[in-house]
Structure formats: structure tokens, C-alpha cells
């Protein structure tokens, strides 16, 4: 009986060993594991890449949207435009009546009544109404200021148009008689 039991044990060990040595099914499992891992890894790569791209898009969109909103909030009122015939200078008095601070004047276009461009000025210095220069060269909400365009030859009693382009890209037009 004991001999029979020993034989059974040997047989079981042989079967186990045979199973371990059997490699046909193992290769399928390993390959599946590898494929699945690769798929998950690629998925994560795609996830991170897509997230990166979408956040970049978000950033661009957000910047564009903020710029649009800031432009919407800008408003400049022309209080007075005075042409000094003897000094050939044009004084433009402005007020920021919008709802955003730091409105700068980037470019000023002067055109005649026919629309022909007379002068383009890009280096604009903003002054307070009392004649002192505005330190930050911009107009905050409710702030008033003026700039002077020099060496401008205009005909007296003729109509002209003025276009002020702000640093944010808003445009404000005004007509005046020299």
C-alpha cells in the first residue's frame, strides 16, 4: 500500500513538472500581457499628448477671449480736438469712459474728408490736462488726457477724420474741423 502511495506521489510530481515544462500556452499569455501593456501605455501617451494639446488650445482660446473682452470694455471719448494753425499741431483731448484700465494709444491716423491719409503717428505721449506727462502713458477708468500731433499741415475750416488705435487694438473714430 505504501509503495502504491509513493508511486502516486511521483506521478503527481511528474505531471506538475510536465505542466511547467509545457510552454505552448505560456507564450500566448505573455504575448497578451505584453500587448495589453503596450495598448495601455500608448493610451496613456495619447491621453497626455491630447491633454497637452487641449490645454494649449485652452490657453490660446482663453488669451484670445480675454483680449476680445478687454477690447469690448475699452471706450475713449473725444472731448475736444483743436488744430493750432500757427503751430501746425493738433491737440486731441480724450477721456477713458470704458470699464477697463490701462488704455494706451498705439497709433493715430489723420485723414482728410476724402479719406486720404495725411499722417500716421505711432509714438504718442499722453499728457494730463494740466500739461504734465502721464507717468504710465495710459488712461485708467475715468482718466482724461491729451496728446499732440505736431508738424501737421491742415487747411482751416476743412473737415478731417481722426482714428485712434489703442494698444489692445480697439479703434475710435472722430471727425473735426481744423
Amino acid at each position: 500500500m505504501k509503495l502504491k502511495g509513493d508511486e502516486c506521489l511521483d506521478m503527481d510530481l511528474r505531471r506538475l513538472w510536465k505542466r511547467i515544462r509545457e510552454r505552448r500556452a505560456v507564450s500566448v499569455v505573455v504575448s497578451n500581457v505584453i500587448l495589453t501593456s503596450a495598448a495601455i501605455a500608448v493610451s496613456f501617451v495619447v491621453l497626455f499628448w491630447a491633454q497637452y494639446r487641449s490645454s494649449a488650445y485652452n490657453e490660446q482660446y482663453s488669451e484670445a477671449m480675454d483680449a476680445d473682452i478687454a477690447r469690448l470694455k475699452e471706450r475713449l471719448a473725444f472731448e475736444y480736438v483743436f488744430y493750432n494753425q500757427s503751430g501746425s499741431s493738433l491737440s486731441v483731448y480724450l477721456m477713458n469712459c470704458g470699464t477697463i484700465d490701462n488704455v494706451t494709444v498705439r497709433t493715430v491716423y489723420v485723414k482728410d474728408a476724402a479719406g486720404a491719409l495725411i499722417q500716421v503717428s505711432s509714438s504718442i505721449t499722453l499728457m494730463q490736462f494740466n500739461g504734465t506727462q502721464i507717468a504710465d502713458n495710459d488712461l485708467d477708468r475715468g482718466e482724461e488726457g491729451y496728446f499732440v500731433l505736431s508738424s501737421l499741415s491742415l487747411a482751416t475750416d476743412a473737415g478731417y477724420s481722426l482714428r485712434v488705435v489703442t494698444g489692445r487694438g480697439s479703434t475710435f473714430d472722430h471727425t473735426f474741423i481744423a
Partner: protein
Amino acid sequence: MTIRLSLRKRFRKLIIANSKGFSSVIGTTFMVLVMMFLSTAVFMWTLSQNTVYNEAVRARNQEEADRSNENVVALSGNYSVSGDNVTVKVVLKNAGSLAVQIINLWVLDTDPSNRRYTNKSLSLNMTPGQVLSFVDSGLLTVTIPGANANHTFASWFVTARGNTIPLEKEQAIIVAQLAQGIGSLALDFSAFRYFKYATSTRLANYSDGIKSFNVPSRTDIAFGAVLTNLDPSKQTITLNLYSQVWLYFPKAPGQSIVFYIVNVASNGTITTPYSSITIAFGETKLIVFASDAAGSLTRVSISSSVENLPCALNLLLLGTIGTRDYGQNIPFVSLYVYKP
């Protein structure tokens, strides 16, 4: 073998026993989840950004609507010029439904010889329907070097919303017709005053004086009258040395006192001899009458014989208007002489 058993076997064979393509299923599922997650996030974020933008557009539209609904009118506009000081006389009425803040006044001298302008910062808050009168106020006074009453002025107010309110000039015909009837110089009744002397030639408390219609007897005094030139032809009036204030007493027949016109420096000192005083059109000037003799200074007092009596005061103004002679008598002031 039943059909049910057959299907179960086939399912086991396809799904469980056969693991080929399992990774593709996982990958695809993962990919779909990633895409759904990302697209949802981007969509929601874009939606929120659009909401922010729409809110900004709505706010902008509201501002534009408020701006176009502002309705302040400047009525009864007129200008008073004294030296380089130009006073804007106007009645402002907020005829709109919005509260308005007026932040600036611009005044422009449109005369070709003196094309100057100036502005004055204001802070006038007007509720709907409110009327502010600046007809008798000096608040809206600006300085324009070289300004003259003969010049034409233009002015406008600027509101905090960026609107401009032009000044509508008063119907000048009313003043002109009045001036044709009673003369070109108008007396500011409420500004009538008299002065005592601080020294032998200097008036005390000049130019305010004492604004009263009760004057002391036995005290050297002088009278001050504020005159405005409202000549319809806008000519300058020159007052000569015979211009005077004349007091007469109904209860004391034969009693009358005269105070001749004098020049007064800004510190109140009466300067002699008299040099003609000119009042340009629209200009307002304080004219002082102090002397018993024309062209010089002989101080005058009201005698005790007319104490406690009322008297009438007339301004007898003589000189030229433009190149023509001019004479005007302005009555209206009554005085009571009291014993000091």
C-alpha cells in the same frame, strides 16, 4: 445537446477561451474614454468662456444703451466776461431717466483773434428730472487769456459716460429789447454796496464792502454798483468823470448829495486823477462813486440833517458808446440814512 448549451459553449469559446484581440478591446475602450473625457472638458470650458464673453457683450450693450439714453440739456446759456474770466450762465436739466455725472466744462473763444479754449473739472451729479441753475452763480467761471465780451464763445459739458452737452444760447432778443428800453448798462441790484474808508484814500474791505441799503450819516462813505454792458449793438461803453450817484430826499426838499465816479486799485486805494472806465459788451464791472468833485477825490458824507430819512438813489451815467455820446439814468435803489 440543447440550443442553450450550444450558445453557452460558443460564447465561452469566443470570449473567454480565445483571448486574441483582447488588448485591442482594452485600447479602444481606453481611447474612447480618453476622447470623451477630453472633449467633454474642452466643450464645457469653451461653453464657460463663451458665457463670459456673452456677459461682456451684454455689459457693453447696456453701457451703450445708457450712454444713448443720457439726456441732459443746457438751457438759457449766456456768458459774462470780466477781464480774462468768462462765466458760463446756464440752467442744466436732466431730462432723461438716468442719473448723470457731469465731469467737465469746455469753453472756447471762437474769435479769430483769440482762438483759445480752456476746461474746468466739475463733479455735478444730477438725478433724473433735476434742474441745476448756474445763472446767478460764479461756479462755472474759467479763465481765457485775451477773452473779450465782444467775442463769441462756445461751450459744452462732458458727462462721465462720454457724452457732450452743448450749451444752447439764450434768446438774446430779450436782453436786447430790454436794453433798448432802459439803456445798455444793467445794474445788479442785489450786489449794490457801500464802503467806509480804511485810510484817507483807501476803501475798507474792498471789494466786498457792505451790502446794505441802510447807510450811516456823518461818515465818509462811497458807493459801489455792479454794472453789466448789455448793449444790443455790442459796443463798448466808456464812463467819463461826470458819471455819478445822486441821492435826493423827498422829506427834505433841496437836500441832495452827489458821489462822482472814481478809479479804485485792487487794494481799494482810490487813484486820482480819474481816467475813463470802459465796460465792454457782456462785461461786468464794479464801479465806485466816492468823490464830491468830478475827476478828483473829495470824500463825501451824508449830513446829519437827513438822518432817519429815506432817499432815492439814481445812477447818472455819462460817457460814450462806441463813437457816440451816451447818457443813462438808472433809478431803483432806495436808501435809509441812519444815525450811527
